[in-house]
């Protein structure tokens, strides 16, 4: 019998009936009176060029065109489409050197394929698109830099004068001596090592590919209020940024959050909100709608940072991990965005997992003529998981040590430093993950069986593991405001700006509120969308919504309960601390007969006119609203491990995924089915990054596969059979003991599948994605050697 009523139950999600009937509106589905359509004209001729001439006059004459809007017609304020910079505490802003470097339209120079040049506003979308063909742009082509090596050359054209050498960011000397993150002395460590493995690797440019393309509406109305309808993950940060860009008070900058058709980091900040708002400002009184073609999502919203890795690991004969050295030189794309974030955080993940005696990580990011990079589920962790987990297994094969045993022995423990070394682990339950996962996949038996295979078809099993975070405390601001209003019939409205990207957080947060109030879930609603009403919240990033949001909800409920208990204490002549709320009755602990009906109390708090003609009108105390302005005390890192079995065709390099076991140290599963959904969905993205997904370019910087025809993700028949193992050992800080689950599920498959292929074939592919082409080439090279 569970100690909880709703926590731990797979309650049906609150949002799905509207989604399954098609009645839920996404931004693209909204229509408004007087609405006009905008099309952004982009540069598809060059990835790097000066704009010599822009002539919109012919386009302006096209039928249906209402206005053509060029760089001169919109604000010239510069901004950063990401929001990470406003989340960084002031102590870090200086050393990190985050910059604003974007404008609504290209500032005289196109720096990546698909950059926006100007816009057409017309009565219909078709009219706007057809008129766009009449825009004349003349360019002066410039050399194109598509990787860190090319961009850092001394004679390369500079992207930003504030960032010499096109080095957008490296770990700052002011915080990291010699620009190195880590501990100990790796030189000494390698000197002590019995075995050293060293290699260069590449991790690819993966795209979130959320199913909802980018659509926005903006309106600058007669009250000089700017309203933007957006499916951003970060409504309050975006509201704040838009207010700054357009120089209007936050109170007149309204952001209405529309249903989010997936995000995964692509909407961690702004995509085309600045453009929609700029066009609305240029055309006051008319709602302006932008519906961006699917192909443009690859060009406008941030992708994962690709880049080059150098890794060196040292071990003692018994497997003792004595030294790890890693350098990640990532390709930033054309603008800064999360320049500091991924380069720095990747080192955090890298040092978080195992007890390396000495560790040195360096991270840089260089501007390139590519569409921008920013946040993507995992935020550097998938890259490091692939690199480190595959390098470790190659070493363990040489040392003849079992990968599961090694991981069990050398992972960090409670009290050890986490990804943020000053914050020690509050709970670690990776051992049962490894043990039960190994059991479920048949680890020992299969590892033994798959030794010394010789045929064309060979099998292998592999494991990959990592840890992550629950919110970005203490590196970033984690502030969340939540309120809960108790109604006259003892129902409650939560108000909270958190976005549900589809993961189910709105459902789980209602469960947390219901559990804390001991209300049925159906008596609680959650209002998130109206930016005029909701208080501040950082947004949905860093696997924080359930963990931090849940903490905020509990604190708001506790504030409401405190008010209830104070009032009831007077009525019952009891101490508020002795009161308890259960089934909508407030009573003295231990004597349930001394009780007050919550419904009567709350009814009286709303209808509170207390007529007494002798003394004149008076009022009872008013409506109760609980409030929390919450910051979490910790980041309770979750752990996860994935086991995969593959079959590889040695003649063709083709790899089939046979079986997958995902395990997760969750602390507590508030809604187990939702937790599984995160693990399974993460697996599809992690396997895709490992095996098929990559954005690639022609030599002159044109994106060659910005469409589902050639950007290939695993489909339903490609996905292996999946088993989920959820380990619940409550964390001391999380709401009801819960930790996060949003991002780890993407990371661990990368290590597991790479290691399973290695186990099957004896070859290791060091650049992602691991395609049959690369596997076969490696097999042939091995045969030749």
């Amino acid at each position: 019998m569970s100690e909880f009523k709703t926590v731990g139950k797979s309650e049906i999600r609150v949002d799905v009936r509207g989604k399954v009937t098609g009645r839920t509106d996404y931004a693209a589905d909204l229509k408004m009176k007087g609405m006009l359509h905008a099309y952004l004209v982009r540069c598809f001729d060059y990835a790097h060029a000066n704009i010599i001439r822009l002539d919109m006059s012919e386009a302006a004459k096209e039928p249906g065109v209402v206005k053509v809007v060029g760089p001169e017609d919109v604000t010239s304020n510069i901004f950063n489409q990401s929001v990470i910079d406003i989340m960084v505490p002031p102590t870090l802003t200086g050393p990190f050197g985050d910059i604003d470097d974007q404008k609504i339209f290209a500032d005289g120079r196109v720096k990546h394929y698909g950059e926006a040049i100007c816009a057409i506003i017309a009565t219909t979308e078709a009219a706007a698109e057809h008129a766009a063909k009449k825009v004349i742009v003349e360019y002066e082509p410039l050399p194109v830099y598509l990787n860190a090596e090319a961009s850092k050359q001394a004679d390369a054209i500079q992207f930003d004068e504030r960032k010499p050498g096109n080095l957008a960011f490296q770990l700052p000397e002011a915080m990291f001596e010699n620009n190195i993150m880590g501990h100990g002395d790796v030189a000494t460590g390698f000197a002590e090592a019995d075995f050293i493995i060293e290699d260069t690797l590449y991790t690819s440019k993966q795209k979130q590919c959320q199913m909802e393309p980018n659509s926005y509406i903006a309106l600058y109305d007669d009250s000089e209020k700017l309203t933007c309808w957006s499916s951003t993950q970060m409504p309050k940060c975006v509201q704040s940024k838009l207010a700054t860009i357009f120089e209007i008070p936050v109170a007149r900058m309204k952001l209405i959050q529309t249903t989010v058709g997936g995000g995964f980091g692509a909407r961690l900040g702004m995509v085309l909100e600045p453009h929609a708002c700029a066009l609305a400002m240029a055309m006051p009184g008319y709602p302006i709608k932008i519906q961006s073609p699917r192909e443009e999502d690859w060009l406008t919203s941030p992708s994962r940072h690709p880049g080059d890795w150098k890794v060196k690991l040292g071990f003692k004969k018994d497997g003792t991990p004595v030294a790890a050295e890693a350098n990640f030189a990532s390709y930033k794309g054309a603008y800064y965005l999360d320049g500091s974030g991924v380069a720095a955080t990747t080192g955090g993940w890298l040092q978080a997992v195992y007890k390396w005696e000495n560790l040195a990580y360096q991270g840089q990011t260089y501007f390139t003529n590519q569409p921008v990079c920013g946040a993507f589920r995992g935020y550097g962790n998938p890259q490091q998981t692939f690199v480190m987990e595959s390098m470790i297994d190659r070493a363990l094969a040489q040392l003849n040590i079992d990968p599961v045993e090694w991981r069990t022995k050398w992972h960090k423990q409670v009290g050890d430093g986490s990804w943020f070394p000053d914050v020690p682990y509050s709970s670690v339950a990776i051992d049962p993950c490894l043990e039960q996962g190994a059991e479920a996949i048949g680890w020992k038996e299969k590892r033994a069986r798959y030794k010394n295979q010789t045929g064309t078809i060979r099998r292998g099993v592999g494991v990959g593991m990592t840890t992550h975070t629950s919110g970005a405390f203490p590196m970033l601001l984690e502030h969340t405001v939540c309120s809960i209003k108790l109604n006259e019939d003892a129902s409650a409205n939560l108000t909270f700006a958190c976005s549900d990207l589809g993961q189910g957080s709105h459902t789980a947060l209602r469960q947390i509120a219901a559990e804390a109030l001991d209300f049925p879930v159906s008596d609680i609603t959650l209002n998130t969308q109206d930016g005029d009403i909701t208080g501040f919240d950082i947004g949905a990033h860093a696997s924080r919504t359930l963990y931090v949001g849940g903490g905020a909800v509990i604190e708001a409920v506790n504030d409401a309960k405190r008010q209830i208990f104070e009032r009831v204490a007077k009525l019952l002549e009891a101490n508020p601390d002795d009161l308890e709320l259960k089934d909508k009755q407030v009573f003295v602990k231990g004597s349930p007969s001394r009780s007050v009906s919550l419904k009567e109390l709350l009814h009286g708090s709303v209808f509170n006119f207390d007529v007494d003609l002798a003394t004149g009108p008076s009022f009872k105390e008013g409506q109760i609203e609980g409030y929390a302005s919450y910051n979490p005390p910790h980041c309770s890192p979750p752990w996860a491990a994935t086991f995969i079995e593959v079959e590889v065709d040695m003649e063709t390099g083709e790899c089939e995924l046979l079986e997958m076991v995902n395990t997760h140290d969750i602390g507590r599963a508030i809604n187990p089915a939702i937790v599984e959904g995160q693990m399974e969905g993460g697996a599809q993205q992690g396997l895709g990054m490992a095996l098929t997904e990559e954005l690639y370019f022609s030599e002159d910087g044109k994106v060659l596969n910005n469409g589902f025809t050639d950007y290939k993700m695993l489909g339903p028949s490609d996905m292996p059979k999946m088993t989920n193992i959820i380990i619940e050992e409550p964390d001391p800080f999380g709401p009801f003991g819960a930790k996060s689950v949003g991002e780890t599920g993407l990371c661990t498959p990368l290590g597991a599948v790479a290691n399973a292929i290695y186990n099957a074939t004896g070859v290791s592919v060091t650049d992602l994605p691991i395609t049959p082409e690369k596997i076969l080439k490696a097999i042939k090279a091995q045969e030749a050697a």
Partner: protein
Amino acid sequence: MSHHTINLNVNGMPQTVTVEGNQTLLEVLRETIDQTDVKYGCGTGECGACTVLVEDNKPINACMTLAATMDGRSITTVAGLAKGNELHPVQQAFVDDFAIQCGYCTPGMVMKSVALLSENPNPSEDEIRHYLEGNICRCTGYAKIVTAVQSASENMVQYAGGDAA
């Protein structure tokens, strides 16, 4: 531009609309008839978010169909599935089995599943997975969608009326 006046039956409602030769069925459903439950996901027939059923429960991509060529056809979209407040068994299974996360692929995914079960009432897991190719979901890893189609297959037997869509 050529104009074509066509008759459609959308979810049981007769519609007479005038379309241009280059308009897709998706555009006409969403913009002209306000059937915004049919989603634009890619416009190239890859993602399946715009899947609708024509006549004998045949799934097609509305984005890959010229509207003018659909004169006289009956079209069912996800909004036409439920009987009043009672969800179609496939819809109910998607709700009950957590097959929906962000929901953007859901209208197309549900229609594709209805089409599958109307021609193959008891599909194997493998048949479900292969049939659902052409409908992309980026949230669920497909696991719970496959489960939902399996549950729906069991529940369809008891579904009043017996007709699939």
